[in-house]
C-alpha cells in the first residue's frame, strides 16, 4: 500500500515536471538566444552562447528603455486614479444607504457585459475629438490641448475601465468589515470623508494592492489601444514599441530577444512583490460573478 502511494507520487511529480519543462521552453530559448550572435544562432543553434554577447542588452536598452519608462509612467498614474476612484465608490456602495444605490450599482455591474470590442471605435472617435479648450493663465495663453497622441489618451480611459473591477473588489471588502467600526466613528462626530479617509482606507491596503497589481498588468499588456491613439514614438508604450523593435532589428536576433528579456523585468518585479495579492485577486470570488 505504502509502496503504491510512493509510486503514484513519483508519477505525479514526473508528469508535472515534464509539463513544466515544456512550458518553460520559449523562455529558456529567449534567455539563451539573447546572448548569441546571428552567426552562432545559425551555425550552433543548440549550443550555449560562446562568447556571451552581453552588449546586446545595452543595445536593447537603448532602443526599448524609453518605451518601458513610458509604460511605467502610464501604469503608475492609472493605478493612482483607479485606486482613488474604486476605493471611494466601493466604500460608498458598501457602507452608505441612499436612494438609487442598487440601480447605480447595477449600472456599474452591467459594464462587465460590454466587451471592449463594441466600444473600441466610438471611444477612439471620442478621444480623437476631445480637447481642453484654450485658456489664459498667469498672463499666458495655453492650449487648446488635444487628448489624442498624449499619455492622457491612455491614462483617462484606463482609469475609467479599470475602476469597474476595482469597485467590485472594494465593495466586497468594505462589506466584510464590522459595522461597529463605522458606527463608533459616526457617534464621535467624524465626517463622512474622515470615516473613509481615516478608517476605511487604511484597512484596505491588501485589497488595494491586489487592484494595483491587476491594473498594472493590464496596462502593461494592452496593445491595441496605444497602437491606435499614440502615433508619437517618444511616448509609445512597451507592447507596441517592442513589435516595432522586433521589426527594426529583424536581421539581428540576439538584441531583439535581449529586448524581450528587458521588457519582462518590470513584471518580474511586480510579481516578486505582489504574487500573493495577485493570487488573492484572481481567486477572490469576485471573478466568479
Amino acid at each position, binding site marked *: 500500500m505504502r509502496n503504491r*502511494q510512493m509510486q*503514484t*507520487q513519483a508519477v*505525479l511529480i514526473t508528469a*508535472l*515536471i515534464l*509539463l*513544466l519543462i515544456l512550458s*518553460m*521552453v*520559449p523562455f529558456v*530559448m*529567449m534567455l539563451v538566444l539573447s546572448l548569441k550572435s546571428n552567426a552562432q544562432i545559425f551555425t550552433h543553434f543548440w549550443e550555449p552562447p560562446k562568447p556571451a554577447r552581453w552588449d546586446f542588452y545595452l543595445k536593447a536598452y537603448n532602443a526599448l528603455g524609453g518605451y518601458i519608462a513610458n509604460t511605467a509612467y502610464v501604469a503608475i498614474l492609472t493605478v493612482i486614479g483607479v485606486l482613488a476612484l474604486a476605493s*471611494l*465608490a466601493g466604500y*460608498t*456602495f458598501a457602507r452608505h*444607504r*441612499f*436612494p438609487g444605490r442598487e440601480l447605480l450599482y447595477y*449600472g456599474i455591474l452591467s*459594464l462587465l457585459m*460590454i*466587451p*471592449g*470590442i*463594441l466600444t473600441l471605435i*466610438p*471611444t*477612439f*472617435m*471620442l478621444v480623437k475629438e476631445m480637447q481642453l479648450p484654450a485658456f489664459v493663465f498667469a498672463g499666458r495663453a495655453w492650449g487648446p490641448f488635444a487628448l489624442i497622441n498624449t499619455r492622457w489618451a491612455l491614462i*483617462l*480611459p484606463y*482609469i*475609467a*475601465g479599470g*475602476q*469597474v473591477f476595482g*469597485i467590485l473588489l472594494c465593495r466586497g471588502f468594505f462589506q466584510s468589515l464590522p459595522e461597529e467600526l463605522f458606527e463608533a466613528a459616526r457617534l464621535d462626530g467624524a465626517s*463622512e470623508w474622515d470615516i*473613509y479617509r481615516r478608517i476605511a482606507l487604511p484597512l484596505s491596503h491588501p485589497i488595494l494592492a491586489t487592484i494595483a497589481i491587476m491594473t498594472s498588468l493590464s496596462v*502593461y*499588456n494592452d*496593445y*491595441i489601444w496605444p497602437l491606435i491613439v499614440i502615433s508619437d514614438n517618444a511616448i509609445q508604450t*512597451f*507592447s507596441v514599441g*517592442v513589435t516595432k523593435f522586433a521589426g527594426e532589428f529583424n536581421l539581428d536576433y540576439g538584441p531583439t*530577444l535581449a529586448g*524581450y528579456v528587458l*521588457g*519582462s523585468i518590470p*513584471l*518580474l518585479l511586480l*510579481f516578486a512583490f505582489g504574487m500573493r495579492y495577485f*493570487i488573492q485577486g*484572481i481567486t477572490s470570488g469576485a471573478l*466568479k*460573478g
Partner: protein
Amino acid sequence: MTLRALWRSRYSYLFLLPTFLFLGLFNYIPAFSGLYHAFTEWETSSTAHLNGLENFRRMAQDEFLRLSLANQFWLLLASLLKTLIVPLMVAEMLFHLRSSRLQQILRTLFLTPMIVPGMVGVLLWGFIYDPNIGLLNNALTAVGLGSWNRAWLGDWHTALPAVIGIGFPWAGGLALLLYLAGLMALPVDLLAASSVDGATFWQRFWAIDIPLLRGQMKTIAVLTIIGTLQDFGSLLVLTGGGPGLATHVPALHMYFQAFRFGHYGYASAIGFVLFLVTLTFTIANMRFVTANEEIA
C-alpha cells in the same frame, strides 16, 4: 423619495461623482455611440448618417467575414479545450501531491510564464515558428524530420494550427489558479468519506470534483470565449490574418474596416454583432449553470 432624502445622501452622490464622470465619458457614451453607429453610414470623409440595416445586409454578403467565421469557430473550440482541460489536469495533479511545500513551489513555477508581457509571449512564439532560425524547425531537423520544416505561420495549411499551438502545453495561467482554489475549497469531509468508501481517483473525479468545480468551469469558459472573440492583437502582429485569409477573424476584420479603410459605420456593425454574441454566451452560460444547480 423626497428631495430631503436626496439631500441627506449628498455625500454618497458626491463620492460617486468622479466614478460616474469617468464611466459616462469613456464607457457609457461610447457604448451607446457604438450601438447607434452600427446603423449608420460613417466614413472617414463624412459625418455619420443613419442607413438602417444596410451594414448588416452588407455583412451577410461579405465573403471575407464569412471565411473568418470558420477560423473563429476553430480558434474558439481550441481555446475552450485548452483552458478547460489541461489546467484542470495540472490542478488535480498538484492537489494530489503529498508534500504541500512541493505543491506550492510547483504552483508558483507554473505561474511564472505570466511575468512575460503578453506581447513578448506572442513574439516569442513567432520566433519559435520562424522558417529560418525557428526553434520548431531546428528541433525537427535535430531529430531527423528536417523534411517537415516550413514557414509555419506563412503556410496556408499550418497557419491556423500554429496559432492554436501558441502557449503549448497551455498548463498555467488564470485557469490553473481558479481550479486549484476550487479544489482547495472542496469540503474535507466529503473527500474523506469518498476515500473511506474506497472510491478510486476517477470515481471521485467524476462524482465530486467535476460537479463541484462547475462554477469555476463556467467562469473559465465565459472568460475564454470573451477573450478569444476579442483578441485580435496577437493575430495582427503574427499573421495580419494571413496568409490569404487563413487566420482572419471577425474582430480583425472590424479593425481593418475601421482603421485601415475608414469604414467606421460598417466596423461598428461588426462590433455590435460581436457584442451580441458575447452577451448571448455569457447569459446562456449563466442560465445553464443556475438551472443545473437548482436540480442538484
